């Protein structure tokens, strides 16, 4: 592999890793507040991508503007999903049953997408779709750069919300010890609902970023949920910084391996990492005490 190719792959890996990091942060947020493995996360991601595409098709405006609609919409849907569906499940079997429930939601979304917009592959065509900028011999597509910027800004915002606001403190308390959080007067049910809303909002942002750069089709979400689940396990279930680090590392690894192995085999690096992590360090590599108990 030549130096230029290496640099190119590295940059692409970091850009992709940023998107993975944002989405994995959402996924790990659900697990933190509710011990829920949200299989439908990537289905909502694809739904948001479709909404961005449809918005662009009908209005002719930039798909990025669809964020104004999808982010609040997904936030409300996430809140509602937690309050009216997930909270109905029995606490004793919550983890497994929530997987089934969110899995059922994923199937329903995939089916509805296929029903409404058919299985045809869709792609947003923009004036700047083909443009790329060149920095030190590495050419970067503008859309990838926008997607990364979107992911980085959202991750930063998420970090600020979790660290600096009282809601963030309540959410972290709920993640760490729900009972103690209730004892100090935190309405953990409401916090869990809002946490779900935040998680789903990351899917809305990720989906819009995805629509800029990828060809989308209804069953695409299976290609995302596998790597994302691997990332949150490698990073340590429930740990957002862990998820972000693991996302960047694995994104870069997949991108570098793509050159000698091809796209399909490079994808297996996520599953390999998942397997190795569970074999030698099941609680994940970056924090995440939670995994030991769940």
């Amino acid at each position: 592999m030549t130096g230029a190719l290496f640099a190119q792959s590295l940059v692409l890996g970091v850009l992709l890793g940023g998107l993975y990091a944002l989405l994995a942060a959402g996924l790990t947020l659900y697990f933190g507040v509710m011990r829920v493995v949200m299989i439908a996360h990537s289905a909502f991601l694809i739904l948001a991508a479709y909404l961005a595409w449809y918005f662009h098709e009908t209005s002719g405006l930039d798909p990025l503007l669809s964020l104004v609609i999808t982010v609040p919409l997904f936030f409300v849907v996430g809140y509602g999903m937690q309050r009216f569906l997930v909270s109905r499940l029995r606490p004793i079997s919550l983890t497994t049953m929530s997987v089934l429930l969110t899995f059922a939601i994923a199937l329903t979304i995939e089916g509805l997408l296929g029903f409404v917009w058919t299985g045809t592959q869709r792609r947003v065509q923009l004036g700047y779709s083909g443009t790329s900028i060149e920095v030190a011999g590495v050419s970067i597509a503008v859309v990838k750069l926008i997607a990364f910027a979107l992911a980085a800004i959202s991750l930063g915002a998420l970090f600020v919300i979790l660290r600096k606001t009282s809601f963030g403190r309540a959410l972290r308390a709920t993640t760490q010890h729900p009972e103690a959080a209730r004892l100090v007067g935190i309405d953990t049910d409401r916090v869990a609902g809002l946490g779900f809303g935040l998680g789903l909002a990351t899917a809305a942002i990720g989906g819009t970023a995805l629509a800029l750069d990828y060809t989308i089709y209804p069953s695409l979400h299976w290609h995302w949920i596998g790597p994302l689940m691997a990332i949150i396990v490698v990073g340590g279930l429930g740990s957002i910084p862990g998820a972000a680090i693991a996302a960047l590392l694995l994104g870069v690894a997949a991108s570098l391996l793509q050159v000698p192995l091809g796209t399909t085999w490079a994808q297996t690096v996520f599953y390999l990492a998942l397997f190795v992590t569970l074999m030698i360090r099941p609680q994940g590599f970056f924090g995440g005490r939670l995994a030991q108990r769940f």
Partner: protein
Amino acid sequence: MPNASSPTAAPAPTRSGRPTAARVARIAGLLALVAVVLLFPSLAPDPFILSVGVVILSYAVLATSWNLVGGFTGYISLGHAAYSGLGGYATALLILRTGLDPWLALIAGGLIVALIAIPVGIASLRVRGASFVIVSIALVLILQLTFQSWHDFTGGSGGLRVPRPFGTEVLRPEQHERFFYLHAVLLALALLTWWAIERSRLGAGLKAIREDEDKAQALGVPTFAYKLTALVTSAFFTALGGGLYALWFGYLDPIFQFSILVGTYMVLMSLLGGVRSLFGPLLGAVVVGYAVEVFKSQYGDTQLHLVATGVLLGLVVLFMPDGVIPALTSFVNRRRRAASIREVSAEELANQREEAAR
């Protein structure tokens, strides 16, 4: 199929000398079930209905095999299609590459898949709940990926033709009939295994894990070894089911073999019928399998079947997580509506203890 029915029916009365009304009803029901299975091929009006019967029996085999791990331990695997698909491919590839006899290839395929299940189990069963599900889904996705792209070995996304075990002189309807009985035998074996485990020490340990893994461990149940045993047994039977189906269907495509949807059907069937009862998955397979076939013939292979499956699974999870049989039983018994998993199974255990003491 008398060889399959006799061991299932015979030991039941020997458990206690006094035949109660419930036991008589149970044996009568079992005999009726066996009679229906035996007579179905001669009653089926045309080969198409018979082939639907084969598909439903195949689903029943898969769901019952799934229940060996899902029902006993409470660990939900969404990716059991990995084992059925591997079983199909292992059988086909053994026949094609080594020229092995189809039936030997089927059994060898099952054993190979059971071996593959061991490292998967070691990785996913050491920690509780979430990682098991994650690994199960990841396994299907990775297998679909590799079997699609590994052209030289698996035929890739173009698919793989499986040689038929019976010669060309055996016509289509006759093929269906033979495979119907073969599936019935395999189903009987899977049911028998479930039944045998249920009343063994292993079964008691597994159910203890399902109810409270910490307490089970504290009481000295070798939880990890037991869970692994259940998973490997389940993978073995699932692989046999997949292999037998491959021999019947004659064609393998990674998209359908390693399909998330097939794994979902297994879960849905078992949950709907009830994961705690021997015949629950079978009942679920008949209901869901029939519904799937009718849906396909009515509306074609549209995306709507995904929606229907998703909605049905969601409803079952939300409103009948213990399955239809327990839901109906509790309705009939007019139990309190709030009866939780724990109470029901504690009762079951108490009953078992009583029976054993008699």
